[in-house]
């Protein structure tokens, strides 16, 4: 049994060949093939991502409004950014959003995956799986336009439904907490299907014997999930949360369409700030500086996750 998950997240134990490279025909063949296979991806990434990122990093050291030539600014953009309360608020919003969105997304996906995995007719399971995956095929921008109607405080379907069970209209898009909640809900609604499918896959691959053994030991229901299923699923959880966090930290469309960052700054995210300062306010240097900071933040969070995962992720 190989542990593929562990290799996704930390180096595999070195094979003898890696420890002591022996130049042989096979190794050379392998390296040549690797070079050929990697070329399209690496060349593409260098040209269309690394070079542009390098450009952004350089740009973050300049004042540039697109129209005039850039002028060197040194660390001025970074100083400005750290002194700008909107930047700090947008970083805080993004982190708050990330925590709630990812937690909710994983929780919903996990519960639904466990439930779908239970006994039911095959066709029904297929229907549920399709339904939960469906929002993923829609465009985030169009669906946010639709959601804006549904979440309208006075005329929206959401408040109408809540009214049926006696809940007073919630100012979803026009109060600070309501707006963040709505953005999280719309985002999670669209994204949870992906984690859901990952979990369904992970659950299918937990060998039957383990569960049978656990059942024989008398573990049932929730306790069994907590003590048996979850640890076995932890590699999948890690993948789902890493990808989920990377995506959530770059959230843009949902708040942009639903609330335009408001009310106040309450749903302004980092990427929104970047977009606004660059393309609306012609402050490309500052926007690049924030972009660099966001990049660093995402890398740091991801690295932290992998560190923590050593303690919590169990491999068979």
């Amino acid at each position: 049994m190989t542990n593929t998950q562990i290799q996704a997240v930390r180096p595999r134990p070195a094979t003898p060949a890696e420890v002591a490279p022996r130049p042989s025909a096979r190794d050379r063949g392998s390296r040549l093939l690797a070079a050929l296979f990697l070329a399209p991806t690496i060349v593409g990434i260098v040209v269309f991502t690394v070079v542009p990122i390098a450009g952004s990093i350089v740009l973050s050291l300049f004042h540039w409004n697109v129209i005039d030539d850039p002028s060197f600014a040194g660390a001025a953009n970074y100083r400005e950014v750290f002194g700008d309360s909107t930047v700090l608020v947008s970083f805080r919003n993004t982190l708050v959003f990330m925590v709630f969105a990812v937690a909710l997304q994983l929780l919903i996906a996990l519960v639904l995956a466990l439930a779908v995995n239970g006994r039911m007719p095959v066709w029904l399971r297929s229907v549920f799986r399709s339904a939960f995956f469906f929002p993923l095929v829609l465009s985030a921008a169009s669906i946010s336009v639709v959601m804006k109607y549904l979440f309208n405080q006075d005329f929206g379907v959401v408040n109408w439904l809540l009214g049926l069970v006696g809940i007073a209209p919630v100012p979803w898009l026009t109060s600070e907490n309501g707006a963040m909640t709505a953005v999280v809900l719309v985002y999670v609604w669209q994204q949870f299907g992906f984690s859901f499918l990952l979990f369904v896959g992970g659950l299918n691959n937990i060998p039957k014997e383990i569960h049978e053994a656990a059942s024989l030991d008398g573990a049932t229901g929730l306790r069994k999930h907590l003590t048996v299923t979850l640890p076995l699923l932890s590699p999948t959880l890690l993948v789902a949360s890493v990808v989920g966090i990377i995506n959530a930290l770059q959230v843009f469309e949902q708040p942009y369409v639903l609330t335009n960052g408001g009310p106040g700054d309450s749903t302004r995210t980092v990427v929104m700030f970047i977009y606004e300062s660059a393309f609306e306010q012609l402050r490309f240097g500052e926007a690049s500086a924030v972009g660099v900071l966001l990049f660093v933040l995402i890398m740091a969070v991801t690295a932290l996750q992998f560190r923590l995962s050593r303690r919590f992720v169990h491999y068979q």
Partner: protein
Amino acid sequence: MNLSRTRHTLAPWARIAGLTVCALLTLGPVVWTVSTSLRTPAESFDLPPKIIPTSPTVESYRGVFEQIDVWLLALNSTLVTALIAVGQMITAGLAGYAFARLEFRFKKPLFALVLATMMVPLQVTIVPVFLVLKSMGLTDTLLGLIVPAFPTAFGTFLMRQYFLGMPKDLGEAAMLDGCGPWRIFRSVYAPLAAPGLAIVGVLAFNYHWNEFFRPLILETSGQNYTLPLGLVSLQGNLGTGSISVVLAGVVLSMIPAVAVFVVGQRPLREGITSAGVNR
């Protein structure tokens, strides 16, 4: 299935009822979109929402076809999305295999580099990307949308997982039979990769079919617009377009993604099942 017997203290019917409610909540907004597109604008906001329109009308769909050149937009979108999907399947399949099964120097940093590209928001790099494309003469062409999208970090990651999930002994046996690295890839592993590639393809399709920002910035001529760009004109000056027509456009643009999803569902599920996991 394997865990069904003792797993739940909940009765199966309660579980299925719960799932049904969740499925309805998930599909609700989609159903509302479709049904609103079939109603007259005057009925758009009725509460309770009339899910089954009292007098369904396809007037809005006619409106979409009258206002924009749906066929040209769909052709462009199809070309762009299909080529990106195929391209990503190739680059991700090859690179994923290299990272999973081949030995070479700088493997770790290169893999980290690939993953790191997931962490950069598009909005930060779009101006430099535009400059790169300009130097290649690819601005305002569909190729300019397609080529930069070929490398895919997540796809590479997925395919690496996928290849790692395949039994190692297959390759080792072939090696003992005297196969070189290329033969091992071609005859042993590549034929098994189809479900994994299907996920990469379907995910690429979903993402790029709905893409808005890159086409907005990179395409200039109306003839090069993709469907999401074209649909914007339905919104009308200052958002005064008919909501029914806007939603009819959304529904139309949904169809191919849904079709791909339905067709690709099985390989997708198999692929995801075996990609994220221990075997």
